[in-house]
Structure formats: structure tokens, C-alpha cells
């Protein structure tokens, strides 16, 4: 079975007057039908850029240098614009971070859900409205019949994000990219939205790329996780394995920064004080070929800054890490 999404050697750079600056370097991952991958990392690590590259929506100035993105076997980096538009919203769709501004203020919710259906599936107005209503019910919006005719300003943030999910899933896409879908929402609503995504995924078999800072959600609903640092994948593997036994110092640092994730033995006893990773992600253009995390890393040695960052190396069948001095496997 070919994977729904296969990203190979994805390299994206920013064209500046002074030359090209790499933004994403040799990123690779695969995602099967009905599975979820989490992209985690600090802001500025290239998570959203990966999402936009997959959708073919890189902002002006950013260019795909090399690599391929296969959506169900079709390389979306090489298809003509018209084919790409036919795929967007139909075979792959995206949920944005800001539900407050991601809906068009001058059209009703129903009209907006209908757009993709009419555009991609050629449904008539009546049929599209019926599907839109079914979608609003599927995303558990109360009084869906009335909401269908509501304008976005009349809905709360959580409701709007549900509407966004309904729009994104209306055409039953093979791939859904959720770019920090809950960042702008209340904590209780965040959990509801993640539960909803999981539920709809089970029903539709959609593969999900989840970009989030919420490691609790990562542990909860994703199957694999890719940790990005400064545009490079530093660790990649099954979610439970990566989270229970992070091998890259950066991954370990991220886990330690999370106040609510306590698994296994860590759950018992007095909680340790909340950790932080000293320093910042190096800005674009100041990322050496050697390990970009070395200046912030407690385990760094001369080797780390003298030699190029090592390629991802398998340390178990599915678990890869890119580090000269990976952490030892934690003793369970």
C-alpha cells in the first residue's frame, strides 16, 4: 500500500538579495491512510512552512529547491496549477490557526461550507446545502439548522474552528493539515477539538498532519512524531517511543518543558520544577551545516560544531535520530 503522503528530501529556501537561505532542509516523512503525524518544535522551526509547501501555498519569496511531495502517489510539486487547485480542498485541505479570521465575514457559514462542495464535486445549491448541514452536525454544532444561516461573527471561537473543520472535511479529503488548530482556543475547547478530529478521522480515514505545541495532544492522538529544529528533522519515530524515550537532546528538552506530560514512572512522586531550553532558535541565514542545536545543548562537544550534522540514523526499526551524542535509552 502506498502511503497517502510521502515527503522526500523536502528543501525549501528563501530568496533574498544576498542569496538563498535554507528554511527547510531534507525533510522526509510518510503518512498512511487514517494515521496522524505530529510536527513539533519551537516557533520558527519550519512546521508551518512544511504545511504550506505540501499545499503548494509557499509565500512569495520562498521556493521549493528540491525534493518531492507525493499525495497518494502524485507529486504535487510538479503538477500544473489547475490540477493543484483541484486537489486543494478536495484531496487535501488545511485548517488554520486563527478561527476568528479564517472565515469570510460577509458570507454565511453554510455558503462557505458549500463553496468547496460546489467547486470540487459539482453539487447543486440544494445538494451542497444538505451536505453542509450534515457536516455541521458531524462537527457537533448545536442547532445546526440555524447555524447554517449564521454569519461568522455570531459564533464563538470554538464554534468557528468546528466550522473550519467542517469546511476542510466537506469533500472527504485524503489528507488534512491542521496548523495549530487549537492555539487560539480555550483549554476545554482545545480538548473537544482534538477529540472531534480523532473521531472524524476514524470515520473518514483521513490522514492528518498535526502541527501543535500541545504535547498532551501529540501523545493522545498521533501515531508518529517528527521533531523539527531550525528547519531540520532531528528525531522521527512512533509517538510513544519518542515521548517515552526521547533520544535527541532537543526532544528531551521539549518534553521537559511540558508541564502536563507525565508518563509511567515520572507520574509518581514530587514533580520536578518546569524546565526550559536556554537560548533561542537561530534565525534564518545563521544556521551552520553543523548541528544547529549545539549552542543550546548540554551534551554538545567540539565534534558537534566541527562536523556537519549527522543524517538521521535508525536506532530502532522506526525510530531515527540525528545527533552525535544521542541520549541513552531511559531505564524504564
Amino acid at each position, binding site marked *: 500500500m502506498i502511503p497517502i503522503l510521502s515527503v522526500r528530501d523536502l528543501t525549501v529556501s528563501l530568496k533574498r538579495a544576498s542569496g538563498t537561505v535554507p528554511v527547510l532542509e531534507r525533510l522526509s516523512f510518510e503518512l498512511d491512510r487514517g494515521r496522524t503525524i505530529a510536527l513539533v518544535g519551537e516557533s520558527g522551526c519550519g512546521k508551518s512552512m512544511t504545511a504550506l509547501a505540501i499545499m503548494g501555498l509557499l509565500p512569495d519569496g520562498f521556493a521549493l529547491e528540491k525534493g518531492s511531495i507525493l499525495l497518494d502517489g502524485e507529486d504535487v510539486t510538479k503538477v500544473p496549477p489547475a490540477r493543484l487547485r483541484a486537489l486543494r*480542498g478536495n484531496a487535501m485541505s*488545511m485548517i488554520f490557526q*486563527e478561527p476568528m479570521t479564517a472565515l469570510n465575514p*460577509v*458570507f454565511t457559514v453554510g455558503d462557505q461550507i458549500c463553496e468547496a462542495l460546489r*467547486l470540487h464535486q459539482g453539487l447543486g445549491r440544494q445538494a451542497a446545502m444538505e451536505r453542509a448541514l450534515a457536516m455541521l452536525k458531524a462537527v457537533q454544532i448545536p442547532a445546526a439548522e440555524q447555524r447554517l*444561516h*449564521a454569519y461568522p461573527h455570531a459564533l464563538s471561537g470554538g464554534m468557528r474552528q468546528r466550522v473550519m473543520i467542517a469546511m476542510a472535511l466537506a469533500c472527504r479529503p485524503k489528507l488534512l493539515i491542521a496548523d495549530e488548530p487549537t492555539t487560539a482556543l480555550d483549554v476545554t475547547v482545545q480538548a473537544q477539538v482534538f477529540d472531534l478530529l480523532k473521531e472524524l478521522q476514524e470515520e473518514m480515514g483521513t490522514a492528518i498532519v498535526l502541527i501543535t505545541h500541545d504535547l498532551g495532544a501529540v501523545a493522545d492522538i498521533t501515531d508518529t512524531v517528527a521533531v523539527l529544529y531550525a528547519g531540520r528533522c532531528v528525531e522521527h519515530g512512533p509517538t510513544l517511543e519518542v515521548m517515552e524515550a526521547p533520544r535527541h537532546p532537543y526532544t528531551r528538552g521539549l518534553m521537559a518543558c511540558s508541564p502536563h506530560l507525565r508518563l509511567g514512572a515520572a507520574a509518581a512522586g514530587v514533580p520536578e520544577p518546569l524546565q526550559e531550553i536556554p537560548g533561542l532558535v537561530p534565525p534564518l541565514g545563521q544556521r551552520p551545516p553543523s548541528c544547529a542545536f549545539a549552542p543550546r545543548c548540554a551534551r554538545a562537544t567540539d565534534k558537534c560544531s566541527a562536523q556537519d550534522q549527522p543524517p538521521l540514523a535508525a536506532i530502532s526499526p522506526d525510530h531515527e535520530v540525528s545527533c552525535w551524542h544521542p541520549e541513552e535509552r531511559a531505564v524504564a
Partner: protein
Amino acid sequence: MSASLPTTQTGAPQGVASPAGTALRLFLSNPIGLGGLIILVVLVFAALAGPQLYGVDSLDIVGMPFQPPGDDPILGTDYLGRDILAGLLQGGRASLAVGFTSALITVVIGVAFGSLAGFFGGAADTLLMKITEFFQTLPTLLFAMVLVTLFGQHLVVTTIAIGIVSWPPTARLARAEFLRLRGLEFVKAARASGAAPAYLIWRVILPNAAPPIVVSATLAVGTAILFEGALSFLGLGDPNVMSWGLMLGQNRAYALDAWWTVMFPGAAIFLAVLGTSLVGDAFNDAINPRLRKR
């Protein structure tokens, strides 16, 4: 959520305020806008139905020249002995038609240039804005006079000429709106759901850019009526079609001796421009919540 949701199952948009509906309600509750609208409605009605009701041709000589306002021709006669009231009624047709049509031309050209420039940016923006600046640097009245002189003193020529010299500010306005809106999240979201550029421009961005454009179009009607008056005043109007501007232009030499020959068409132009300005301002207040007093 709200406990008092409408309970109808018919799906009728009951109790749901659309942005346009809210703006209309605000507009109608504003006495200034309502006053302007009443002025315009009266003028349009007078121009459309007046000539038939009054039954006097505006180009016919009905009596002695320079008869003062009184009982027979109620508003007097002009320098050729033509009925002033008939002129006002019939001239209103031409003046208002020129006003609305030129405003429409202004908006169509302006939005076409502004939306394409603002949406695509880059080289398209530079090229389209250079063309806009070229038109904007030409003195409008002079340019319109050249066009009318070149293509003939005909009402259609006047209308098109006014539209051609007036569109650059609308183009700049539309461009600014498109620049602002194209980066917003909902436009990105529409792009991500497969919308083509034409669809994004026409169905996604334009409805959101419409409010300021509608306001400027309303104000453009008044400006165009004034413009037509100015051209006719300078003797460049269509001599075969009665208009308020033509009445002003032809009688201007006698303004000091027979005030009524220019006073009434001048007042008609004043009222029409006042009406459109009031409506435009009220539109603006209704559409733009930040400018509202409360």
C-alpha cells in the same frame, strides 16, 4: 451557547443579521442619510415622470424671453423664451443619467485596475499603477474638454469622458483594499480550498472590499453631475439635449439681469450633489463601525 435560539426548522434566516442587512438598518435609522435619499428619490422621480406630467417640451419656445417667475411659466423663461421648469424636469434626466453612468464607468475601470494590481502585486501592480498615475496626473477638466472636443459634443461622449478622467482615485482605493484583504487568513483559507484567482478576486475579496468602493461610487455620482455642469457651462455640453449644466451655460451671460435663468438649474445641481453626498456619508457611517459616534 445562546439559550434563545430560534426554533424554526425551516432553515429560514430568522433573527440572523447579515452584514449588509445591519448596514442598511443603520443607514435607514440615520436622519442625514434618509434626508439625502429623499432628496435623490424626489429628483429622480421628477426627472422620470415630470416631463410627461408637465407636458411642455424643454426646447420649445413658449413665450417672450426673460419672463420672470410668476404664473404662466411658473419659473419663467430663459433667453430664448423656453420654459425653465420644463428645462429643469427634462434636464434632470440628462444630468442624473450622466451622473450615475459616469460613476458606474468610474467604478468599473477603477475596480478592474485596482483589484488586479492589488491582488497580483509585483510587475502587474507596477504596470497598472503607472497607467493609473499617468491618468491621475492629467488635469481632469482639461482632459475631459480635450476628449469632448476630439469626439464631439454628445451626451454619450461627455459621460464616457467624465468616467475616463475620474477613475484613478477609485483604482487606488480598490488596490489598497485588495492589498489589505489578500493577506488575511480567510483569503488564504479560500486559496487552500482550491479557489482560482478569478474566484478569489470576484467572490472572496471583492464583497469585503465593496463598502468603501460603494461609498466612493455614491460620492462619484455627485462629482459627475458637477462635472457635467462644468463642461456645459464652458459650452462643451451636448446642445441638443437639455441638461442642468446646459441651462447654466447658455444663460450665464444674463445671470445678472435674469437671475431665475441660472438660479433654478444651479439649485437643482446643488440639491443633487447634496443628496448624493449625504447618502454617501451615511453609507460610510453605516458600513464602517469605527467611524460611528456611539
